[in-house]
């Protein structure tokens, strides 16, 4: 029967039209490749010259022709059979994760907790895990702003930078401990969120995107140029490492009056103790972010965020003040970025404006978007893929951002709501009739 189906489908495949499309695509590909790939700007002794590279254009033309032809072929013969199941597959994963949320998140948390004690876990794995968890936390924080409240924030990294620099400055100038600075950093970041959000949150969403982008750049420019405070491009180094709630330190020779961790437990000193502690610290911070978000969704303000995302006019009619609701989402999102920032500063022991470029904002946004806006577990999966993926494929480092941008476009084309988007209304007026029916 499948053969019969196939023969019917191949009949509908219009070869002349496909060839015409393919020729057109090949022509456009050639035109796109000709100026930028066909010539390379070479440099010799300070003088620039154009180097010919016509073979690249030829490759682009042939690739365009073949690619387009097979795409038309696939659209007729394969797509009806593959695309819906594939779409259903990711949607299905989304809904399956959703229905088995408690089980899955329980398993994930257990796995995360025992990771440092597994036999194969070494410094490198721990380091990568910490790195990834920072992004998970940032993703969850941004999810409040983008996923729940539907505000597009392109300058999220600015709040991360505020958090990192406030810890760095407070600890180097006033020698405050990490545990005092952590809430302060969150507070500062939230304050910046309010200052920025107040004027612009009354406006339409797209303006917000561009203003936050501009704000991200402003913060970076200030960090780069305000030498007396931020030390400019050189950054701030010698930031204090965290202690175990001020009780013990993770150093070989602790300060006067403070016990070292290894001395207290009478075990040999190991640098890994601090790594394990940092790992648990960021894990706890990330989980707090997640737990906080989940609880907020059940509060009136959380409900208002989601309602506002869906329909602002309806919300206004119901007496919700959009500016205040948006401001709360913006400030809370910024606060978590501040926490993550101060963790980043204490983990690195060094901060510089280099770490807070627009690309960071784009990566965090991509994590939220690709994971499916509003999906908490999607953020974890997306950060695993986007942050850890390129780490394992070192050779592709050069093409990392290229693939990254391309992926963002492709995923938006294919699933405009995100890869694992499964957006269940938090509350329903009437119970669902068929379980698992998608919106």
């Amino acid at each position, binding site marked *: 029967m499948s053969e019969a189906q196939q023969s019917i489908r191949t009949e509908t495949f219009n070869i002349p039209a496909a060839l015409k499309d393919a020729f057109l695509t090949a022509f456009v590909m050639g035109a796109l490749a000709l100026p930028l790939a066909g010539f390379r*700007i070479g440099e010799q002794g300070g003088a620039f010259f154009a180097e010919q590279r016509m073979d690249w254009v030829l490759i682009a033309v042939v690739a365009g022709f073949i690619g387009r032809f097979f795409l038309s072929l696939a659209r007729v013969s394969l797509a009806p059979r593959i695309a819906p199941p594939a779409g259903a597959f990711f949607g299905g994963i989304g809904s399956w994760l959703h229905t088995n949320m408690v089980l899955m998140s329980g398993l994930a948390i257990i796995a995360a907790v025992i990771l440092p004690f597994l036999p194969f876990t070494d410094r490198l794995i721990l380091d990568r895990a910490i790195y990834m968890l920072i992004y998970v936390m940032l993703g969850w924080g941004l999810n409040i702003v983008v996923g729940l409240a539907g505000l597009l924030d392109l300058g999220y990294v600015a709040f991360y930078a505020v958090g990192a620099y406030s810890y760095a400055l407070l600890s180097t100038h006033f020698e405050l401990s990490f545990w005092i600075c952590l809430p302060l950093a969150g507070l500062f970041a939230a304050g910046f969120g309010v200052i920025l959000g107040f004027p612009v949150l009354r406006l339409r969403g797209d303006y917000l995107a561009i203003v936050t982008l501009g704000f991200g750049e402003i913060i970076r420019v200030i960090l780069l140029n305000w030498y007396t405070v931020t030390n400019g491009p050189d950054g701030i180094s010698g930031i204090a490492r965290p202690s175990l709630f001020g009780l013990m330190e993770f150093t070989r020779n602790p300060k006067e009056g403070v016990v070292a961790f290894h001395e207290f437990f009478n075990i040999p000193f190991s640098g890994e103790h601090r790594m394990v502690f940092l790992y648990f610290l960021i894990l706890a911070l990330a989980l707090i972010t997640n737990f906080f978000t989940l609880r907020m969704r059940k509060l009136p303000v959380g409900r208002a965020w989601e309602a506002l995302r869906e329909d602002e006019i309806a919300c206004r009619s119901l007496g919700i003040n959009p500016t205040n609701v948006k401001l709360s989402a913006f400030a809370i999102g910024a606060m978590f970025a501040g926490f993550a920032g101060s963790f980043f500063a204490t983990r690195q022991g060094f901060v510089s404006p280099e770490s807070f470029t627009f690309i960071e904002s784009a990566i965090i946004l991509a994590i939220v978007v690709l994971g499916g806006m509003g999906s908490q577990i999607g953020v974890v999966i997306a950060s695993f893929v986007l942050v850890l993926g390129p780490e394992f494929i070192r050779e592709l480092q050069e093409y990392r951002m290229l693939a990254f941008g391309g992926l963002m476009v492709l995923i938006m084309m294919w699933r405009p709501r995100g890869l694992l988007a499964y957006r269940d209304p938090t509350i329903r007026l009437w119970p669902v009739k068929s379980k698992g029916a998608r919106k």
Partner: protein
Amino acid sequence: MEYFIQQLINGLTLGAIYGLIAIGYTMVYGIIGMINFAHGEIYMIGAFVSFIAFLVLGAVGITYIPLALLVVLLLAMVFSAIYGWSVERIAYRPLRGAPRLSPLISAIGMSIFLQNYVQILQGARVKAMQPLISGGFTLMEHDGFTVTISYLQIFIIVLTIVLMAVFATVIGKTALGRAQRACEQDRVMASLVGVNVDRTISLTFVMGASLAAVAGLMVTIYYGVIDFYIGFLAGIKAFTAAVLGGIGSMPGAMLGGLLIGLVEAFWSAYFSIEYKDVAVFSILVLVLIFRPTGILGKPEVDKV
């Protein structure tokens, strides 16, 4: 006073460049209501195409400057227009009718993609060019300070005025312009009366991209230094210009561009050059607080 006039001239030149980019933003926003985030990259590509075209022309032996400029101008416009068209075809057209954030995210993806695409193909190092046209007029001389307007600045300002006139005619008088204005008001209604909406939107992108390419060419010959990253900042500033002038309005975009150029020039001259970008973005925030519709914009009404 002399210093002021000199900065005025510099600011106007810079403003003409921003204005040309801003028109692309404003046209696209007017017609499909989205921020074409990749527009700054089209400008960057325009600058690279011009740079390469100059090098190739030099190698072929065409060194008569007016001819070379004309050829490079046409090449940059055509090739960048193809890039603009492809961006719309690939990243935006499949997303018509998708949730509002989706095309914006796809646009950011496209912007990152194009930036890295050029970086990989052409290398990350800064490309520098010999000044093509030198010399200029001395307007005044006082206390040892001379006010000059270079031929290059005259070229940029005149070219901008000519392009403005051409595009104003296209939008105001031709069938394409009418179709564009119709799509701006109501896309469904326009398609019902026989306007090919997809084609009109594509042509809008082509027009915006070719203007951005001209801006790219101007930057290449004015500053003589380009790299793959120039599109990002210029893009945000031009968008700021479009918002300042009132998004959706063509004269507004040009006016906004000129104002941004002037602010940048005067801020660098009288305050600090490091914080000129901060000044520009602060203006964006101030405009949005006090006059969200911009100088020449019409207020937007949300309908249920």
